[in-house]
């Protein structure tokens, strides 16, 4: 599939496949992975579609190997992606920490499931904390994008590649079984790079230049401290420049839902029903969950009566909402750890909070 072929076409595809299309459009020609539900459509798609365009698909012996294949290809200066779910993402954490420390860009897709342990494969948002708080050792961060539609599975994947390159960091797409498996039409817009694509730091053999290395070990003097502050400044810059969110019917909203991904998608229906009944409900939807739209959460909390956090877990993003605002008494939570909340359930909760009869 050539770039021209994918240019601005209206397509009907699964979310997981849209991720592949977005990656290929963004110039990703390397994919490595290991099977795990509910993301198998991604390696399956890549194994069929990368070789004909000169790309490389390789199935690894484990997610530990996968993330280190990724590290090697990223160090070579190529755009590269993997995908997995809960337990597999856990196995990648050491490698992700090395990549953060070595400043290597790549895109990691987590079509998450419920945990802990083997957990369940039903739609869940069980990996929020692992994704945004630093799942591996050493205290790094990475951009984490939370798509809530097939369109976003496509376009946020392209953005993830740009953010990864801009900051020389791994970047994550945090999805779930619903956005991964559902089919809906989307616009496959052409990829327009927002960052320079050359990588002078890549390890390509030292022809015509001094040797270079990719590493995270800094033993001499206080080089490790200097390096840690350098990484920290990148995370501050992400917080200043990369916060992305959607405001949905927030005008005059007294009840402001804060939800991401599938939970936000379902909330939209409930909000429409509530608005028809004259209830001033709206939603702030974080599109980047790191960096988190903290200032925006604080603003809606100050303006409204209630901040209703809805997640497919027992309250993970809830922690970020709490630290974003001092209006703690306005925060409520609706959680479903191992399933999608229905629009009816959310609607009922909104009505209750608005003081309407059952």
């Amino acid at each position, binding site marked *: 599939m050539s770039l021209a072929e994918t240019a601005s076409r209206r397509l009907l595809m699964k979310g997981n496949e849209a991720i592949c299309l977005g990656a290929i459009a963004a110039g990703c020609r390397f994919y490595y992975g290991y099977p795990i539900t509910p993301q198998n459509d991604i390696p399956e798609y890549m194994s069929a579609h990368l070789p004909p365009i000169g790309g490389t698909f390789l199935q690894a012996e484990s997610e530990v190997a996968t993330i280190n294949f990724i590290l*090697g290809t990223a160090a*070579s200066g190529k755009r*590269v992606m993997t995908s997995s779910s809960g337990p597999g993402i856990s196995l990648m954490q050491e490698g992700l920490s*090395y990549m953060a420390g070595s400043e290597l860009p790549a895109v990691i897709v987590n079509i998450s499931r419920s945990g802990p342990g083997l957990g369940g494969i039903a739609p869940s948002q069980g990996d929020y904390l692992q994704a945004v708080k630093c799942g591996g050792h050493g205290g790094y961060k990475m951009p984490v994008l939370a798509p809530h539609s097939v369109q976003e599975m496509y376009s946020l994947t392209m953005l993830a590649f740009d953010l990864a390159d801009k900051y020389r960091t791994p970047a994550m797409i945090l999805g779930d079984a619903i956005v991964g498996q559902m089919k809906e039409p989307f616009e496959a817009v052409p990829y327009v790079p927002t960052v320079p694509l050359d990588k002078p730091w890549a390890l*390509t*053999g030292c022809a015509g230049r001094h040797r270079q290395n990719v590493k995270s070990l800094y033993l001499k003097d206080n080089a490790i401290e200097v390096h840690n502050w350098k990484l920290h400044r990148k995370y501050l810059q992400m917080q200043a420049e990369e916060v992305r969110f959607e405001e949905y019917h927030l005008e005059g909203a007294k009840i402001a839902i804060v939800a991401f991904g599938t939970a936000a998608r379902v909330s939209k229906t409930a909000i429409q029903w509530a608005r028809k009944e004259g209830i001033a409900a709206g939603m702030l939807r974080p599109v980047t969950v790191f960096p988190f739209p903290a200032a925006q959460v604080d603003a809606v909390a100050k303006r409204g009566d209630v901040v209703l956090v809805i997640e497919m877990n027992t309250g993970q993003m809830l922690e970020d909402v709490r630290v974003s605002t001092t209006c703690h008494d306005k925060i409520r939570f609706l959680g479903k750890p191992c399933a999608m909340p229905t629009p009816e359930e959310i609607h009922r909760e909104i009505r209750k909070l608005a003081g309407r009869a059952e």
Partner: protein
Amino acid sequence: MKTETRERFTKQAFARPKSLVDVKTHFCPGCHHGIAHRIVAEAIDLYGLREKTIGVACVGCSVFLYDYIDVDVAEAPHGRAPAVATGVKRAQPDKFVFTYQGDGDLAAIGTSEVVHAANRGENITVIFVNNTTYGMTGGQMAPTTMLGQKTSTSPYGRDFRKDGYPIKMAELLATLEGTAYSARVATSTPAQIRKAKEAVRKAFDMQLKEMGFSIVEFLSTCPTNWGMKPVDAQKRVSGEMSEYFPLGVYKERKQADFL
């Protein structure tokens, strides 16, 4: 003496390989990591590979590979060098890619990565330095530790009933179809060093001819953690270590064959 006469009588017989950086090493006296480094650098020079090589360093005493060998180097997490090398080689098949790993790194935590890289016939070269212990972390027991050998975590000596047997990686990897070349060498005598150079050249050649995975296991010393003088450490390699880990070529593919 006039210059021409001096040149005539002092033909240079021994020089630093171009790819070996001129710095003081951090290795302990009597450690053979330095010899292995030099042999690798010589082979890089021999094939003119300096500008097209990417090395992958492991976690262990040889983690500073990039300070010594004058080529691009990536650092891999402990044990994962063959996986990192896979990612490099798949992205840049025209480059020369090697890993340099210790025995804790390759034969314990990284067993899965090296076995599967070999089994895929990954066209990379592995330099494996077996000193029967975890040198960097202070001489703990490794899977390669000899029976009866006392280490900081086998203070009563390694007992096969508890810890099993020293693992023979050169033999094990030679059984895999994807392995093109597997040999075990030592660097305790000039004769052994000559054979080691030959083995490394062969292993490099395999990769250049795209024959598949190649590995050279070096029986090496760790006088510091063995609690031995360098000379005694050298004797141990030629003695009990070579008896249990026989030197030799375990596999050598003659032509690129496909099953």
